């Protein structure tokens, strides 16, 4: 039970702190925090694939961008209100994810990563070249928010509320039998297949789910930027999502959210103090890859070693009875063995 409730408790504390900050911060800091919260949803949704599914996607920006463009283009061409755009975003994002997933998931490993990257570039080029519909390189901008959301503080609280709600849903997804099966596929695909698990089906559902929530994150982006432009769809934007996942820790649920926070604040700080922020970002990435693949969450885990990949590869001791039993049923081996195999 603790394993289920501990992250939820963490989420509650985090939400309380972020709510408090919402009342105290000034407008410009609030905007930064707002961006961090929106990106946190983007990162956690991306991690459903990268961490839980073992599917390294460099194309999640497609859905992020679709979310933002749905709101912006709906506003421009169909006179949609923001609410209509927000409601349509996950639908369109989900449909796009279904189409892309059906193609990209045919490939494995690197081919999958490169294919998703190519789709990201495809989306970018469509947005940039279809000038008459998308506004080309300039994108779409304007007063597309209702007055209540355009105000920084209410806008922030709205983003915070939607993100918290989405994270709660995503947490339920990862803790469900579906989430466990997804992990078992990551650990041993052949074994899962042999046991009759529909591997492709599970991966496709994960891809669509991730796409839908990335799309919501994109719709939230409009709240603090009031615009949508092609760079949102670019593969480097997808790369940043993977970066947040890695820096925060891909083997925990909230790690990527932490990564988003660090990324946004770090970027704000660096951009203000140096012109070389990309250089520093790149150096951090290389260092992480070389020396420190657990991310920040690994650092916060009390006894780093013991809590490595908590909740993913190895359920906590108190919970082992029920949770491990379920996993064992699906994978046909104990989580301990899975752990050994990973080393």
């Amino acid at each position: 039970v603790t394993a289920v409730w501990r992250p939820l408790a963490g989420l509650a504390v985090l939400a309380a702190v972020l709510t408090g900050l919402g009342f105290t911060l000034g407008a410009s800091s609030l905007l930064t925090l707002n961006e961090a919260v929106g990106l946190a949803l983007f990162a956690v949704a991306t991690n459903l694939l990268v961490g839980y599914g073992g599917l390294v996607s460099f194309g999640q920006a497609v859905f992020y961008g679709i979310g933002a463009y749905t709101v912006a283009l709906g506003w421009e061409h169909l006179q949609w209100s923001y609410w209509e755009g927000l409601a349509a975003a996950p639908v369109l994002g989900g449909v796009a994810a279904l189409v892309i997933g059906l193609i990209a998931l045919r490939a494995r490993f690197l081919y999958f990563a490169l294919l998703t990257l190519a789709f990201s570039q495809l989306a970018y080029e469509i947005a940039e070249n279809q000038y008459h519909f998308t506004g080309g390189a300039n994108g779409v901008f304007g007063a597309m928010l209702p007055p209540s959301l355009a105000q920084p503080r209410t806008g922030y609280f709205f983003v915070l509320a939607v993100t918290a709600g989405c994270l709660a849903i995503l947490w339920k997804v990862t803790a469900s039998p579906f989430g466990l099966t997804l992990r078992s596929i990551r650990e041993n695909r052949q074994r899962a297949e042999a046991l009759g698990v529909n591997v492709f089906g599970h991966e496709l559902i994960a891809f669509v789910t991730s796409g839908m929530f990335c799309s919501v994150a994109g719709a939230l982006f409009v709240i603090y930027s009031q615009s949508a432009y092609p760079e949102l769809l670019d593969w480097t934007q997808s790369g940043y999502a993977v970066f947040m996942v890695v820096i925060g820790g891909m083997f925990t649920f909230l790690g990527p959210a932490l990564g988003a926070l660090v990324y946004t604040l770090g970027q704000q700080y660096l951009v203000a103090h140096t012109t070389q922020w990309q250089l520093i970002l790149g150096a951090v990435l290389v260092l992480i890859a070389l020396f420190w693949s657990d991310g920040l969450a690994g650092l916060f885990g009390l006894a780093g070693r013991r809590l490595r990949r908590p909740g993913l590869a190895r359920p906590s001791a108190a919970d082992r009875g029920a949770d491990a039993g379920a996993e064992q049923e699906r994978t046909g081996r104990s989580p301990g063995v899975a752990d050994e195999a990973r080393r």
Partner: protein
Amino acid sequence: MSTFIIDTVGTLSTAGTLFIVSAGLTLVFGAMRLINIAHGSFYMYGAFLVTTVAGAGAGLRFWLAVLTGCLAVGLIGVAVEIGVMRRIYAREHLTQLIATFGLFLILADLALKFWGTSSRTVNAPAAVAGRLSVGGATFPVYDLVIVGAAVVVGLGLWALLQRSALGWRIQAAVEDPEALQAAGINLRLLRTGVFAFGAALAGLAGAVVTPQVAVAPGMDSAIIVSAFIVAIIGGLGSVAGAALGALIIGTAETIGTVVAPTWASTFIYLAMIVVLVLRPAGLLGVPERAR
């Protein structure tokens, strides 16, 4: 007929550049199972170095600049291999992608520092700067230079990989590295050499293409996507596949430009999707095994 000749030469020229870049990418993958996002940065550095070395002077100085660009990028490749790459060959794909994405950002930022944001152009030497008329069709002579360079690179790689002892060692480096080491081959040196060679090929492509493009930041991210698509279509690790993929992409782009100009750039992705649906591991690739 004349438009057909023009389109064909243009296609071959595009495919030529793409092939040289992708050959380097796929060679490195074939020998080390490493995919390098920063490969496009090497291409951009090759181009920027030419703009610096050649300056306004055309003629012999241009060819010297191309050579310098190619070799200097090879040296950058040596430094990158020793500093980062050799530590991540055995790691999982995500780690490799993260590290090379980091390198991509670092190299992009350094390029910005050295060469700024403005775009630069280079004139081709007078001997190959004009236009050629064949059967009523006129096209830039320089297109033929690029096609020639691609053919030389292709034949050279074929001879190296299929006909030389060094080529067999490169191929064995991924199949059975232990046996190679037992035979007294310096595997570290071999890997450094292959990586530098792959980087130099990207540098060469960037250097050779300068008279035809505006050299500017952003070249790196545009070319790497194209190179990935070529490698995906042809099959990672296969040099012949890279040639095939480059031709398919070049053709798709030309057809796109003729049929639907505003959608031209989407045609190469269509080509990629069609190939992938038919053969998930590329035309000449073998399905990748779990590691």
